[in-house]
């Protein structure tokens, strides 16, 4: 086994294929997944609550916190069959079923610990308790913007007038754009 690997690695082409294969897979995985969601996903608008920004390497960004990130305790209580302490099972993955109004703005309809078979839902990770609700992280907390343009979003974000235009497919979501409400 070891000598076979050593023989294989003596070939320059084989060595470079081994070097480049994993990085290429990692670099292509995210674009393929996200382009698919953007192309085939369902449109949803997510309302925001105020917050703010800067990423060391990747540029300026708007930090987003959604209304649907607060999951009422009562919904979790019924989803878990009356179990009280959700922290005990952390990190708990939850599936948040969404309902859309005529303007495509989404709200939480139900929560489940198993993947729903159909309908509009988002996969999230349950966080800490905030009184009568629990934090839920969907990995949609940042939106990158051109350097020095943060002021465009500063007031709308603080006033909670920004909505994320999101595409959702099979529980995964990608932010397509930010929409500023009048």
């Amino acid at each position: 086994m070891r000598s076979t690997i050593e023989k294989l690695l003596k070939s320059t082409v084989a060595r470079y294929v081994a070097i480049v294969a994993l990085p290429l897979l990692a670099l292509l995985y995210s674009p393929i997944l996200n382009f698919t969601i953007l192309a085939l996903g369902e449109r949803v608008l997510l309302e925001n609550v105020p917050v703010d920004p800067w990423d060391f390497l990747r540029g300026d960004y708007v930090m987003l916190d959604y209304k649907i990130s607060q999951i009422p305790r009562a919904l979790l209580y019924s989803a878990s069959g009356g179990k009280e302490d959700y922290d005990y099972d952390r990190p708990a993955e939850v599936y948040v079923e969404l309902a859309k109004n005529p303007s495509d703005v989404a709200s939480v309809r139900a929560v489940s610990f198993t993947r729903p078979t159909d309908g509009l839902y988002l996969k999230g990770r349950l966080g800490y308790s905030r009184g009568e609700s629990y934090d839920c992280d969907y990995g949609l907390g940042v939106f990158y913007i051109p350097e020095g343009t943060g002021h465009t979003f500063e007031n709308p974000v603080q006033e909670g007038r920004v909505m994320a235009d999101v595409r959702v497919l099979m529980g995964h979501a990608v932010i397509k754009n930010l929409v500023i409400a009048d």
Partner: protein
Amino acid sequence: MERRVSEVKRRFLADESREWVERGLISEFQRGGILECYAVVRRLPTVVLTLGLLMIGIGILSFIAANWQVIPDWLKIAIIIGCYLADVGGAYYSETKGRRGVSGLLLFLSGFLLLGALALISQVFHVEGSASGLLAVWLLVYAPTFLIVRNISIYMLYEIVVLVYVNMLYFEYFDSANRYGFWDEFRLILGPWQPFVLLILLVGLAWQVWADARLVANVPGETGESKIKRFFVGGSTRRIFLSNFLILNWFTWMCVLNSTQTSFLPYVLSVLVAGALIGFMAWKLDAPDLGWQSLLLVGASGLTLTFPWAWYWHDGHHSGDGYLAPVLSSVALGAYLVYRIMRRQRGGGFSVFLFCVLLARWYFNMFETFTSKSLFFVTGGVILLLIAFAYKRWNKISGEKEVSASEGGDGDEIDD
């Protein structure tokens, strides 16, 4: 035609040849002739150059990243992946042409490109990821390059990222607001798949230990002490990496599992003690490579102590007065590094690098919020390059003085 050698080799030759003259093997005239055949090459400290160029690179990269909204997403991805493939393709071409040095350099650069590419692709899709997650992916996908290519720069880059990654996990653990138990928190921080990265790393490293242990066992007539020395010091860079990795993590695990404090301080101090112990071993075993490791650990923990959060004790109380402890730590570390540089000890280039990081740490602290990011990085890079040139100049002048004092002025020098 003179042969170009490093200052260390030239000094060794001068010492050895003096011994030969004393033993009557060669005459003083012959010694002079031999020494004249070798010219000292003084290089800029590579690591400082790399850091300076890297900061300029990050500045340019972040400028592009922040201002390329006009380019369609698919084209951004193509440019990012294209840059990486062009770099690895260049390495392949160089290797087929027999230029292994250039190929190694390009593969080393591919590590940075890969890290930047992963970060930029996640930016294109507004993915909110953790820094430890990014490093875990990088460690996984860059592992074949690390294992296949025997290049000291790649090895060093990988070692540093492993140490940063493991320490980042500990810091995230300490940073979490409500600890339920180490393993629960470990799962929470890592997610379901990151432990596999650690597992792959550990299996790969264990394999190296086994191979090295067999190598040690197969040397006939060797004493126990020299076996230990060979095992810890050896010639294999991966073994050095391993001993470093294991010693550091033994200390940190002991510290984490036994500490009831919600503080970084015991952890950071344990790394400092580990560095000091390795330094003691370096002195006791006369092993310069261990001295280098010691410098790495003392430098890393010393730099950590320059941050106020490293000094917080349990219940959020500060063990010192605001910036007093960090400033004192900076002064102590700076003095230690300057002492090493002035004494011209082995690893002088790395001491300069750590000194630059120390300066960069305060540069970040003071100017990061006042300037635009691209200007900030480019200015920082230029300052580091200036320090590198100043070090080279000082090294040349002091080296000339020493050579002329001890050798009567023999030994030409070449700038590279």
